[in-house]
């Protein structure tokens, strides 16, 4: 539905389009059922970043403090990319595997139930 506006051509550029981030794209990463982190993290990253770098260099800054983080088995962890099942390729870049600007990555570790098994 269009905005009902006083001007006939109510149109604005998206404030968060890729061009405004100086070469970076935004990637959100959330760990399902681990609410020690109140929300997914937002990372500004070059689209050429490999998934290995995202997972092993970027993510630990925020996630490693969780008591279960070191117990994650990345072989069995599952991923969703923008709500679709996703198999990350570690040596490929974000753009090469369809992780776009403002994409949401979620990972699941069903064997880890969170602090006190409470999803925390």
């Amino acid at each position, binding site marked *: 539905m*269009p905005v009902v506006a006083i001007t006939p051509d109510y149109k604005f550029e998206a404030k968060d389009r890729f061009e405004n981030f100086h070469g970076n794209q935004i990637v959100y990463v959330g760990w399902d059922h681990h609410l020690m982190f*109140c929300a997914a993290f937002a990372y500004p990253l070059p689209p050429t970043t490999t998934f290995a770098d995202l997972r092993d260099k970027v993510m630990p800054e925020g996630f490693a403090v969780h008591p279960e983080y070191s117990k994650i088995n990345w072989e069995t962890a599952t991923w969703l990319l923008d709500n679709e099942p996703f198999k990350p390729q570690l040596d490929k870049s974000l753009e090469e595997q369809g992780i776009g600007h403002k994409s949401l990555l979620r990972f699941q570790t069903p064997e880890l139930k969170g602090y006190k098994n409470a999803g925390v």
Partner: protein
Amino acid sequence: MVAKKLNLKEKYRALTRDLDWDYDYADRKKAFPYEEFEGIKITDWSKWEDPFRLTMDSYWKYQAEKEKKLYAIFDAFSQNNGHLNVTDARYVNAIKLFLTGVSPLEYQAFQGYAHVGRQFGGAGARVACQMQSIDELRHVQTQIHAMSHYNKFFDGFQDWTHMHDRVWYLSVPKSFFDDARSAGPFEFLVAISFSFEYVLTNLLFVPFMSGAAHNGDMATCTFGFSAQSDEARHMTLGLEIIKFLLEQHEDNVPIVQKWIDKWFWRGTRLLALVGMMMDYMLPNKVMSWKEAWEVYFEDAGGALFKDLARYGIRMPKFVETTAKEKEHISHQAWWIFYTHGHAAGFHTWIPSAEEMDWLSEKYPDTFDKYYRPRWELAKEMEDRGERFYTNGLPQLCTTCQIPMGFTEMDNPTQISYRSSDFEGEKYHFCSDGCKHIFDEEPEKYVQSWLPVHQIYQGNCGGADVETVLREYYKMNLGEDNMDFKGSPDEKRWNEWKGKGVA
């Protein structure tokens, strides 16, 4: 012979309707250029009713009396070092959030009503908006005066207007009002007078202000209730506006319903902040957020919507979600702030053992199961000397701008993720309500000034969080932010109260 005194109705007519004039040489449409574009049809402005029939002369008389009473209390509060009588210095942090988050909205309301008060063709509506505009200016002024006393003794009160325009969590209230003020005049009235004032502000001003009194803060309680005495008039205006619009033309009904749906949801999201103030920031509790929601929305709002059903108006969309959210929302909101306590302009803390027991009692179905474990983890870390501050910036909801920390209500350990694609861009939302609002008017919300993205675009004075906080937000780091424990506020408080350092 003494002239007969006008009765209230005659006086009201003389001092509102009779001040109006007809347009014989100018084009009426040009005089009121914003009156038609929203699609609202007004056939007869004279049907506008103001049940209080307040005229400008009585308005000044009673407002002056309210001010005198209010300022006498401020003087007494200050002369008596009232800040020393609050229950606990933690309490003052709720007032910091009020000054930076709510008082600027009063000013926005003043501007908003001054603007729309010019735009309506009906004299009754213009006079009512004019009075409300002046009320709102009075509210922001009295709030500044009341809180200036705290500014002498506590951190975090110094740059509230600057912070309101810039700080990440204050974009939540700011964008709410920016959204309303950039809408047309009728939407503004439905948004603020009806959805906000009538349906929701009781939740801010009544139980919270009663809570201020219960925590020894007579100044806040009094400005709150004094503002609320105007609010009773605003609420009545809000209800009359809705009835007027619905009675004027049947084509108005779906437009008004759409606005009610939008602004009810916008309002509930904004009030998540009030929920956490009530449940976590008041050391002496009056009622839980859940109880307040039941009394002031479910009972009072339920009666209201039953009354409006005869016009074909139904309860707002997503109201069934709020019935579940009342069990969760305050806990999830305080956790967002606790974990971002390094980036907040007020102090945060872990609730005490007694407070957690109170929360268990008030939230028997949710607190122990979902939220007590979060606080136990936080406590474990604090005891190790590693107070938990999250390292990284959160994903924000495009519509309400709150970090996306709210969960699925039927699966409360899973964050609720919603998204839309519009013209090749992805947008993310915390809820069906926020997504629905975006999908109705995407061209408006593609302009959202989302603080996290703005930092990453380099528009907030620096690349690292500390620079942004210090330079762009003007927070005094180490004083305004971080945990209450170990803060200068706590240290001074203990000195004043003759307590040893905890």
